[in-house]
């Protein structure tokens, strides 16, 4: 049953990718149908879990032994519990909606069949990731989603920028993967296995003193390596640079992979390995720091971008920062992190789909400075996007409010100076979130209709998607039903999910058997925190209104302050990477090629040349005169005779 869940999209991917042109007509329907099949199966499984007792909700399905080697047993086994079924539902649910959306969005793309194949592949890999029962299989899914992400970011491969972005994403993720593989190796050497249950149990046993203690250093190392992996996949500092570029992919991809599901895999990993993190407080601290830094970093970047998708990407980074931070808080934060993850999945996917819808209606223009006043032309998009917007800034009552508020509370509840710092950071983050999201909202849907009097063409627009350049003034229009319906569904989620999960701590208790949960004790009351959050949010919205609502937005971006310029360039992180890693690497490889050619090969060729030179000297002796040879023979004979005589004499 669990295997079937994965098999459906996998089958879809195989059929669509190997099927050839014959399937071009029906490909997207097959892909979508299989995504829904998977969702249906997930729902059935969920229902099955609900029917069981709270402590009895972990199902393990052992398929076969994957890599059986002396002392090293990796199985293909799936584990269904509250945590994974949550993800399953999120993935297949949002995934199915985005499949539907893509039918409309990718209508004019001749390679739509392949697009759906990749989407299905992604679903399968993501499901493997969340359902795996051991870290190695998780690694398989982990890299699988990386591959799907690579393929989808680079889907418009004919654009060099897309191809580069895809490569970058994969490479940065590989650095993270290194962390994951080292973590697995460490687990193997420490525990002799890397299946979830034995590893986590023995960590628990070791820390509670029930078994031989494991060095905390080892656990910290494992945790940090897992964090590295999470950073790569979830675009956390310092491995965040790929996410902005990943927006080169088609918008549904950004919505599904780079907002709702894949990028949250890091959070899943941390929550899943909670026992290890709990046993390694130093690592937990690092996790929270990474989360806090990314939170602010992403928010600042989001404030400065004019590209609607990149602004949203910055936001994604920032929101995942929240989740990572929460996950770093330990048992008080795990469930909250997942809850924010789910609500974020709804509203961020909705936002991206809305952005896609806007682009769809605007000739694939992505520069917000060339939007404006679109609410009249795309009412459905406006409403759904607006609901998503309210959700993300934490407008009271909407889903973002519940989840984010809980995180802020938990951060304060960390206690001590750390708690205050983290809490403040999250609060400030909430303010900035409100600011940049309002900015996006205002620039896109309000204000004057700047797209009317654009200069004829914008040839220097760097990120024009391929359909762009129809020329002339765009004619904003609402998107077809097939696109708006998923947006509406997601908007529903954005509005109600939070309340549904949050009221009565329903979600937290659902996850408790897996992630364990304890109530934090914030130094200030929960109500105060909520009030502060709302206030900060209001300030953010107000500031944004001052900047972008009251006065007209210039079509050409002003130079901006130092911080703005830095944020536009992703706070120079890319430049740093470029100078240090890319250039340095290029020089290194080039000099190594030179070394290989001249030194390593040179030694060999030099030897050959030396022998050659010697032999050409010796060749002069071989002058072809028989008499000359005879002399040497005679001399040789003489020497032999002398040797014989000497031997005799001795």
């Amino acid at each position, binding site marked *: 049953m669990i295997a079937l869940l994965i098999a459906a999209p996998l089958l879809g991917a195989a059929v669509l990718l190997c099927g050839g042109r014959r399937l071009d007509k029906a490909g997207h329907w097959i892909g979508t149908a299989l995504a829904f099949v998977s969702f249906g199966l997930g729902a059935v499984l969920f229902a099955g879990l609900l029917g069981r007792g709270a402590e009895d909700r972990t199902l393990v399905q052992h398929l076969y032994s*994957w890599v059986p080697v*002396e002392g090293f047993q990796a199985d293909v086994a799936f584990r269904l519990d509250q945590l994974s079924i949550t993800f399953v539902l999120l993935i297949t649910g949002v995934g199915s909606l985005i499949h539907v959306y893509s039918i409309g969005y990718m209508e004019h793309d001749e390679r739509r069949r392949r697009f759906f194949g990749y989407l299905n592949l992604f679903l399968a890999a993501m499901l493997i990731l969340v359902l795996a029962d051991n870290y190695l299989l998780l690694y398989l899914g982990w890299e699988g989603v990386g591959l799907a992400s690579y393929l989808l970011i680079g889907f418009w491969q004919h654009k060099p920028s*897309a191809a580069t972005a895809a490569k970058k994403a994969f490479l940065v993720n590989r650095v993270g993967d290194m962390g994951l593989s*080292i973590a697995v190796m460490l687990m193997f050497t420490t525990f*002799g296995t890397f299946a979830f249950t034995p590893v986590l*149990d023995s960590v628990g046993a070791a820390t509670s003193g029930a078994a031989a203690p494991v060095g905390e250093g080892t656990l910290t190392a494992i945790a940090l390596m897992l964090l590295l992996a999470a950073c790569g996949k979830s675009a956390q500092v310092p491995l965040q640079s790929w996410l902005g570029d990943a927006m080169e992919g088609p918008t549904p991809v950004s919505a599904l992979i780079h907002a709702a599901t894949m990028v949250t895999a890091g959070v899943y990993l941390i929550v899943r390995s909670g026992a290890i993190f709990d046993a390694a407080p130093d690592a937990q601290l690092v996790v929270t720091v990474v989360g806090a830094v990314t939170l602010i970093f992403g928010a600042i970047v989001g404030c400065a971008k004019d590209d609607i998708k990149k602004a949203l990407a910055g936001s994604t980074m920032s929101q995942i920062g929240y989740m990572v931070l929460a996950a770093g808080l330990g048992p008080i934060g795990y469930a909250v992190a997942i809850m924010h993850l789910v609500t974020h999945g709804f509203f961020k996917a909705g936002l991206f789909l809305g952005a896609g819808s806007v682009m769809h209606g605007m000739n694939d223009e992505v520069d917000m400075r060339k939007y404006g006043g679109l609410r009249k032309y795309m009412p459905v998009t406006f409403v759904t996007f607006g609901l998503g917007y309210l959700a993300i800034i934490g407008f009271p009552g909407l889903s973002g409010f519940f989840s984010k508020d809980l995180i802020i509370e938990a951060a304060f509840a960390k206690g001590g100076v750390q708690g205050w710092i983290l809490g403040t950071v999250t609060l400030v983050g909430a303010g900035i979130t409100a600011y940049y999201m309002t900015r996006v909202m205002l620039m896109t849907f309000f204000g004057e209709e700047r797209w009317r009097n654009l200069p004829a063409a914008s040839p220097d627009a760097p990120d024009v998607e391929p359909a762009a350049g129809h020329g002339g003034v765009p004619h904003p229009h609402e998107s077809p039903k097939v696109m708006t319906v998923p947006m509406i569904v997601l908007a529903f989620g954005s509005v109600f999910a939070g309340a549904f999960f949050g009221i009565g701590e329903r979600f937290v208790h659902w996850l408790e058997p897996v992630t364990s949960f304890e109530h934090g004790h914030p130094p200030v009351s929960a109500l105060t925190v909520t009030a502060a959050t709302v206030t900060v949010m209001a300030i953010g919205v107000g500031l944004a209104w001052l900047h972008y609502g009251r006065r007209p937005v210039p079509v050409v971006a002003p130079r901006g302050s130092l911080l703005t310029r830095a944020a536009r360039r992703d706070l120079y992180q890319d430049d740093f990477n470029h100078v240090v890693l890319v250039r340095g690497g290029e020089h290194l490889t080039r000099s190594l090629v030179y070394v290989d050619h001249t030194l390593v090969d040179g030694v060999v060729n030099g030897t050959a040349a030396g022998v050659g030179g010697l032999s050409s000297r010796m060749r002069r002796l071989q002058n072809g005169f028989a008499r000359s040879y005879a002399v040497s023979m005679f001399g040789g004979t003489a020497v032999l005779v002398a040797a014989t005589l000497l031997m005799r004499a001795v």
Partner: protein
Amino acid sequence: MSFPLLTATAVLPALGAVATAAVPAARRTAAKWLALLVSLATLVLAVVVAVRFEPGGARYQLTETYEWIPAFGVRWELGVDGIGVALMLLTALLIPFIVLAGWHDADPLETRSKRWRPTQGFFALILMVEAMVILSFEATDVFLFYIFFEAMLIPMYFLIGGFGDRAHQGGEEAAATQRSYAAVKFLLYNLAGGLIMLAAVIGLYVAAGSFSLPDIVAARASGELEMGANTERLLFLGFFFAFAVKAPLWPLHTWLPNAMGEATAPVAVLITAVVDKVGTFAMLRFCLGLFPEASKWATPVVLVLALISIVYGALLAVGQRDIKRLVAYASISHFGFIILGIFVMTSQGQSGATLYMVNHGISTAALMLVAGFLISRRGSRLIADYGGVQKVAPVLAGTFLIGGLATLSLPGLAPFVSEFLVLVGAFARYPVVGIIATFGIVLAALYTLVLYQRTMTGPVKPELVKLPDLRVRELAVVAPLIALLIFLGVYPKPLTDLVNPAVRHTMSDVQEHDPEPEVEAAK
């Protein structure tokens, strides 16, 4: 005396080679079909061997022993263990694909040429190499092994020097010059290694009084045969040098890029996927089996060299401008992994190394053969001459990508399993080594993706607009390889079952145990 299965497996391609060479000049196509049939028949025999082999049984099975040169105690002594079977299967499996991929590589330039014989020669040489390689996997007599180890150089020399890419940026003349340079370099390197090994083989005979591997190993294990530490080390170095050249290990690697660059793609596959495997196989079987103490003594140095190979090969691959040379350097990096796995002396490492040999053979074959198809279409090996291929030839690009992903060890494809095993094995004993080796996987992603990006994506180059996609024959070559990569990636159990007992034997040869985990995990 039962049917000599092992001999038959090797003799069949040898006879096939003779028969292929004897086909009249005008019947080229018949020669090709004959070669293909013979290679397929060999595959069938190899499968029979694999089926008859019982993984849980004796160490060497299906053994055959005939007196050959009684004066020196040289015997025609064959036998296979699990590792041998696996590699034999790999060889027998790859040859039909190589034959099929090289179907037109040795055709005459003018199709009507009546007296053109190299076509027959090409296929005959390939079969000859197959025979030699299979025999080296089977031989349990050191001297016998040495003979085939060296003899395979001769057909390889002609394959490299005689049949290059038709297309060469420097023209036909330059191609011929570089080809002969590459062939001579290949030959000299390997001959040098082989000569030193010959000295060591003789030394071994002097020291042990026998050429028979099982006898010597048994005698050493029982303590009947004492070898001085210095003798053992010297002999080990002699053997290891030859295998390190063949494998190739840094800094003895420079022949490989030349050879693989200048040879046609199928021959390049033959070099790296089949012939070079003899080197790593022999390290596992002979170096560790005959000289366990010396192997342990040399381990630190070998590990460092292997690490250098991994990182260095990958970095150089990044810097290459020539597709085939890039694959060659990638192979050097992979051979670093294999050697690392062999010498970390853990079950995981050695199983991983053996699986790595098989998987690397398949994945490199897939990548290189597709690259060869691409090169033969455009007539250039330079990466810069390509761009946007996926637009015009999506299937070619897709298979190329899968080959590339296999090279970078994507989980789900076969090489991942082996690479991870090697890394785990290395990490378990030498954590630092494991971590450094892990950098190799990032670099592998770098060179593969850079290659893919530069050749396949971006705007279509005007010269490539009419590039045809893969033909049926080419698809027939690539598709099974890819299917195999995926199958072995998700279900490597058949292979591991074959290999595990052999690895257990090797581990007991070197008297090493896997490091115990720090904590016995709660089961």
